[in-house]
């Protein structure tokens, strides 16, 4: 009799469980971040978590599981292995290497897991990239600079880490643009490793060597440092330089009326990727298959641009946020739905 009751109870329980599973869709998504060196990455993860919360309103239960630590490439491969062992439905990764994950992503796909890379493109045919086009990012800043300088002048470039894929793409982007402006002369290009102090020092050296420089293409993470050197040298009015999207820089930009323009690499990219992932897990199909980019697996997101015309709006969005907070934008659930059939 006892046994019978137990069987009956467990049957009821299993029916209840399966019924609730049918009523509310539930997905488990793993987020892997392999570098914790900047607030941008923290904000990226926080925004992705917030985006997962939002799905509750739509009756979809999205549970995120995060692995975020400073790891080497094998360490991040281990992240993916852990997610496979845990049995997630999808993995979203900000990868430490563009190419090193091909075999492990193939294994994830075999296990029926959707893999999406964000922020940096990956070569794996088993993954999808949802993020911005870094080449277009580099081109947008250069185009602004070329137009601001009226198509002529001496320009220097301060780049990030040599050999880093995003850096190489951004460099290719500005070179492509400057080709169309024969009167713009790139007098020097230096690497300052996406480091504010190195950016500031590089700019000092540049100002000492080329006092007549008119424009600077400097990537985010170093632009505030470069601008500090420009301001220290008293050349704020004579030089146009690209900027960045952190609140403290944007405040400075507004206050000192800098001649700047910033291409936005929003930390919201992971949130956008998450919304795309959930829709794909629901079985929806993209209107246009993701076939962009050098690896033919990219879905590029729009890249916002801040210049002196709309910097006031950007400052308003960031009001009340801490100084390290970045201007952001992400695909809302509705924006993402518009990409699907």
């Amino acid at each position: 009799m006892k046994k019978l009751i137990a069987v009956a109870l467990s049957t009821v329980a299993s029916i209840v469980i399966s019924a609730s599973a049918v009523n509310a869709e539930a997905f488990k998504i793993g987020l892997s971040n392999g570098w914790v060196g900047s607030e941008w990455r923290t904000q990226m993860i926080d925004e992705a978590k917030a985006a997962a919360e939002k799905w509750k309103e739509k009756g979809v239960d999205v549970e995120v599981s995060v692995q975020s630590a400073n790891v080497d490439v094998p360490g991040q491969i281990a992240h993916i292995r852990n997610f496979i062992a845990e049995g997630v439905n999808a993995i979203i990764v900000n990868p430490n290497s563009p190419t090193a994950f091909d075999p492990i992503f193939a294994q994830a796909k075999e296990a029926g897991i959707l893999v999406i890379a964000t922020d940096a493109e990956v070569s794996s045919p088993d993954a999808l990239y949802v993020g911005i086009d870094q080449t277009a990012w580099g081109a947008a800043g250069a185009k602004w600079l070329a137009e601001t300088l009226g198509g002529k002048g001496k320009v220097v470039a301060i780049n990030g880490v040599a050999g880093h894929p995003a850096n190489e793409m951004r460099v290719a982007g500005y070179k492509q643009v400057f080709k169309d402006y024969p009167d713009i002369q790139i007098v020097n290009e230096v690497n300052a490793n996406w480091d504010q102090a190195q950016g500031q020092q590089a700019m000092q050296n540049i100002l000492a060597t080329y006092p007549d420089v008119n424009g600077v293409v400097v990537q985010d993470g170093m632009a505030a440092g470069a601008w500090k050197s420009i301001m220290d040298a008293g050349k704020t009015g004579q030089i146009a330089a690209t900027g960045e999207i952190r609140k403290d820089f944007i405040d400075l930009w507004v206050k000192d009326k800098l001649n700047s323009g910033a291409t936005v690499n929003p930390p919201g990219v992971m949130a956008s990727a998450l919304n795309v992932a959930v829709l794909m897990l629901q079985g929806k199909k993209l209107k246009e298959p993701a076939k962009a980019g050098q690896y033919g697996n990219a879905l590029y997101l729009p890249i916002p641009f801040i210049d002196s015309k709309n910097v006031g709006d950007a400052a308003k969005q960031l009001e009340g946020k801490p100084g390290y907070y970045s201007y952001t934008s992400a695909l809302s659930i509705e924006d993402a739905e518009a990409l699907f059939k």
Partner: protein
Amino acid sequence: MAEITITPRTRAGGMRKLLERYPFLPALVIVVALLLLNGFFSPNSLSYRSLTGLLSTYMALVLLAIAQTYVIYAGDIDLSAGAILSLVNVAIVVLMERWGGGAGAVLLALALGLLLGLACGLLNGIVVAALRLQAIVATFATSIFFTGFALYILPVAGTPAPALFWRTYGGRLLGVPFVFYILAGLVVLLLVLSRTRLVTQLLAVGDDQQAAFQSGLPVVPIRIKGYLLSGLFSALAAFCITGDTASGDPLVGGKMTLYSVAAVVLGGSALSGGWGTVVGSLLGALTIGLINSVVFFMGTPSEWQNFVQGLAILVVLMAGVLAGRRARA
């Protein structure tokens, strides 16, 4: 095996004997404990498939830690190990692709990769031992040099490794995953090496360089040979990372250098030289891998993962040091 007949007088004495004979025992206990913890929080992580995965992913760090061990034996250090790994990685991938990716091309590229690793080791050895520059700074400088060379060979990560190569590494042979053969081969190689005079000499130099010199040991050639071994094992580590990632990346090893040093210390070797085991370093590398997983499987919030990971490494380090100190006291 004569020791077996000696019965330890007390428990503590027996423990000490055991630790003296197998200094890597604390590291082994820690690895087993971490495996159990992983299994407790996520039973799936102890599956055959997961363990094979763990091994194939961390084999590169294991080899890099062993590379590091031989120079640390002699009281030196090699901060260029990760850069050598990157350099050999891009070199073999580019060569394999240029030569068509057949079996012959793969083997020839691997042979050249080993030579390249040895050449890097030789350069380090000359700079540190013959020119007498401080090892920590000199190898930091050569690491920048090697990275520059790697970037020259392959400016951006990209070129895929031939399928033959990485499918072999990640695949099976006679039903057994290929990494287990690598592990078996490695154990044999380490056993052979541990019986050579070179290892004893390296330890003697590390223990007291002056005394070693005065007793007639050729200290400079010995230290150079230590760096040669380091270069060789860094190249072997590069083969594993190429097998696991199937591609070339000129920056892939940069972060691995300090992990390799950490693995050596976790394995019970002394950074000051003269004391240590390669088996300990092997276990130390696995410890790092297992700590990373257990921090996640425990459900640590993402903002605390780095903190907990660092704390866990410190705790393990402390446990190992306490056990080791008792053994040597």
